[in-house]
């Protein structure tokens, strides 16, 4: 990892405290909604200090074997390595009967970092695959935060055992916090319908507040 990053590792900002903005006056008045547990999904969050110290900045999601996965990604011609990696994995449809995982860090976007972008994606995805025992083709990563700085992925990898130990079906709110960047509140939503023979639940989280004009497909 150190070899791949070279001198760039020394330029990564460390230990900086993040300044928080006041909560948007348009935030939902009732705060984060009570989201149901979704059978087969576990969440964990940790503070890895990817960019800022003293806040959770990594989210891990473990998905049960057999989970089907759909996706949509920015059409930006300069999209980041993690986006390209997710696109390729969804297209390949490899290991659909196996378990899967999602790993997000909200400190470093790993964008515009040249070949090191894919190096970091591969390092994180491989480590998650090994930690959770899922195929690397079923590990989907996203990165958000500062652009143009090599991602110190070793800080994320170092937290994987802690994240694995913290996986919990009720951890979705902490996960919503962990993916925030300039966001002033975590975002969640849920719905439930009557299926044939039982209820079907949906629960979602999101982050976003600036650089927002999605053009996804």
């Amino acid at each position, binding site marked *: 990892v150190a070899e791949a990053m070279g001198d760039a590792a020394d330029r990564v900002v460390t230990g900086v405290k993040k300044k928080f903005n006041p909560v*948007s006056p*348009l935030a939902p008045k009732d705060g984060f909604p009570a989201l149901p547990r979704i059978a087969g999904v576990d969440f964990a969050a940790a503070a890895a200090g990817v960019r800022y110290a003293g806040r959770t900045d990594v989210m891990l999601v473990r998905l049960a074997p057999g989970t089907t*996965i759909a996706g949509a990604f920015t059409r930006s011609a300069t999209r980041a390595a993690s*986006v390209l990696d997710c696109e390729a994995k969804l297209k390949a449809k490899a290991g659909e009967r196996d378990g899967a995982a*999602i790993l997000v860090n909200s400190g470093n976007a790993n964008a515009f970092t040249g070949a090191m972008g894919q190096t970091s994606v591969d390092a994180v995805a491989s480590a998650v695959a090994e930690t959770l025992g899922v195929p690397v083709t079923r590990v989907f990563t996203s990165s958000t935060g500062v652009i143009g700085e090599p991602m110190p992925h070793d800080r994320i990898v170092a937290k994987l055992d802690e994240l694995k130990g913290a996986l919990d079906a009720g951890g979705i709110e902490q996960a919503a916090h962990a993916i925030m960047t300039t966001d002033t509140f975590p975002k969640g939503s849920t719905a439930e319908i009557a299926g044939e023979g039982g209820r079907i639940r949906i629960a979602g989280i*999101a982050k976003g507040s600036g650089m927002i004009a999605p053009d996804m*497909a």
Partner: protein
Amino acid sequence: TMLVYIFTDAAITQPHLQKMLSRHLGTTFNAITVDSDTSTSDALILAATGKARAKPITDLRSKVAKDFEAALHDVMLDLAHQVVRDGEGATKFVEVRVKGAADAADARRAALAIANSPLVKTAIAGEDANWGRVVMAVGKSGAKADRDRLSIRFGEHLLAAKGWRSPDYSEEAASAYMKNDELVIEVDLGMGRAAQSVWTCDLTHRYIDINADYRS
């Protein structure tokens, strides 16, 4: 950057799940804008574990499939709206409704031109019912439009119609409406039947403060 993760315990095949997701992008996450800038990292993952007791969804024409798709749309739209509500420095949540467009592409073009216009968004921040800026945005959008068929409403207030300021226009009433936290700008192009809604927020000094402070 916008990141979205949606989970369900439904049992549904990947092609069906992808089809449902793709069908609703245009009216949810692709129908919002905070600052007209597209990130290089936007991503949305929708995962279905199949662990619910309910039977698998196999027929997209079935009632369960339609109910599921409607619920998925609601979750997607709610999350998209929350992103706009957190727009950096936002104080107003704005729906831009365009109707009467010649076709769907034109409706989208006009709606996004209005929602992305810094002049419209700063007018909203200043609580100014500045319909002239809406006319400008429609005119530059590339959508088929005719000044004399255009009408513009802010909420229930008809401000402009048939190429003129509406005779019913009341600046006091329109200005009072602009003080609301949530606003609707409705534009009828009068060219056809296509419609599109998009959502945005106002553009305030706080946006500059926040972004000037965010270093890369």
